[in-house]
């Protein structure tokens, strides 16, 4: 595997509040990296910096030459005064023919929606349509910000399985933001646990027993549902990017 992306010592601060501190990460071609962390941990900020939508105060982001990116934002707000079909949404940027759009929609399982108006889609349908737009560009890197938002539990695992399959088919690397580790894990190569700094990172099985992870998310490995228990009073050695043992 060759390196696709590396971010070094990213710091980002807004209104005197440090949102990201010395965050570094690397991504290989074909690797699935999942960013987890509590609300307000800076996950979306980090993703936006990686995509060049935000500029870090310090640190650098470097892509391998010629990398194409498919992005699926956390939220998509289309005013309901805009008559836009799913087909037009997918064909908005770039040169695309109808057959390619149909194929992409088919791959994510919503080809019957091609003529539906965007504003009439349900939460789960919208996620799949956005995923179709991201894969339409045959990207080397898929960036998915909370891809299973608004999808019911069974749909969530289906969607994660689909993302895993797409990685194999397209050979693209995936950076994914998520709240809960359990459904993600099976498809993930690397988990990065973020709370303004990198608390711990590594293979999912290692991270899930990592003390820093357990402190952040609590012990809920055997419950089916991830309950949110985040304690703010924990301490880390900052900037090391290593796990506390």
């Amino acid at each position: 595997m060759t390196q696709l992306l590396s971010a070094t010592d990213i710091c980002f601060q807004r209104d005197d509040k440090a949102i990201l501190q010395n965050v570094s990460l690397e991504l290989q071609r074909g690797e699935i990296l999942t960013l987890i962390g509590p609300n307000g941990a800076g996950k979306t900020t980090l993703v936006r910096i990686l995509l060049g939508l935000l500029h870090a105060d310090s640190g650098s982001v470097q892509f391998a030459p010629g990398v194409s990116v498919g992005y699926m934002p956390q939220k998509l707000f289309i005013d309901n005064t805009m008559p836009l079909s799913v087909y037009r949404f997918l064909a908005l940027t770039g040169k695309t023919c109808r057959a390619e759009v149909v194929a992409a929609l088919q791959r994510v399982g919503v080809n019957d929606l091609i003529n539906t108006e965007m504003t009439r889609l349900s939460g789960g349908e919208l996620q799949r349509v956005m995923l179709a737009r991201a894969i339409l560009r045959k990207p080397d890197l898929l960036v998915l910000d909370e891809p299973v938002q608004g999808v019911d539990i069974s749909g969530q695992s289906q969607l994660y399985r689909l993302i895993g399959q797409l990685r194999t088919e397209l050979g693209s690397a995936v950076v994914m933001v998520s709240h809960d580790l359990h459904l993600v894990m099976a498809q993930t190569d690397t988990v990065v646990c973020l709370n303004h700094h990198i608390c711990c990172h590594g293979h999912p099985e290692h991270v899930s027993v990592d003390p820093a992870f357990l402190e952040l998310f609590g012990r809920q490995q055997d419950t089916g549902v991830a309950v949110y228990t985040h304690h703010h009073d924990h301490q880390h050695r900052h900037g090391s990017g290593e796990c506390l043992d």
Partner: protein
Amino acid sequence: MSGLINPIMPEFLLLSLFTGLSVAVVAGPLGCFVVWRRMAYFGDTLAHSALLGVSFGWLLSINLNIAVTCGCLLLALLLVVAQQKRFLATDTLLGILSHATLALGLVIASAQSNTRLDISAYLFGDLLAVTRGDTLTIALLSALVLAAISYLWRPLLAITVDEDLAKVEGVSVFWVRTSLMLLMALVIAIAMKVVGVLLITALLIIPAAASRRLSKTPEQMAIYASILGMLAVCGGLTSSFWWDTPAGPSIVLCAALLFLASLLLSRGR
């Protein structure tokens, strides 16, 4: 040309009609973006600043059309910068800016009450008094804006749907957004002649809103909005001609009636 049509239609009416139609044609597609991007308040702010342009132009005795156009363009750029720096998070700030410029314009204008600056012509439009020069300028500007909108159509749609997504997919969001603001400033500057600063936003929004329920694609909506706007201009001028109603407000009223009709029509389906 006027000689030919004179028997049927007096020249002033012909000029007014042509001016109104050229503004309505371009207000259609632009109005769609105002509706889709929820920029009505931006429109108001730009429009009200046009009056300030009039007052300053009068004060400095420069050509009023040029003063208004420059004023609008300048404010549009300011708004772009403010938006970029995220000063403009709320409607409140725009509301303050919008009405403060309107008030300042009115105060400056009234300070020269001994002169012949007719403020109501700028507030509500003075379509029936357009000159041949006005008509020509407005038609040219309208054609220019229309050409720019069609050239930028796809990137404009892309940033309207989602700016981040558009940027990741290679659209230069900043330039497209800035162009949209400048085009809007130009249209507001020319629309002031037709409906006046207080009613410009109506001319942008109402035809676009009326065409929403009739259309299935963004292009359809833009074209229908142009057509409905043109119908409103014809209707308003007719009423103005026969019943001596003020032209600008009549046009807006006519557009509002068309909007009501579109509601009833789509409910009937």
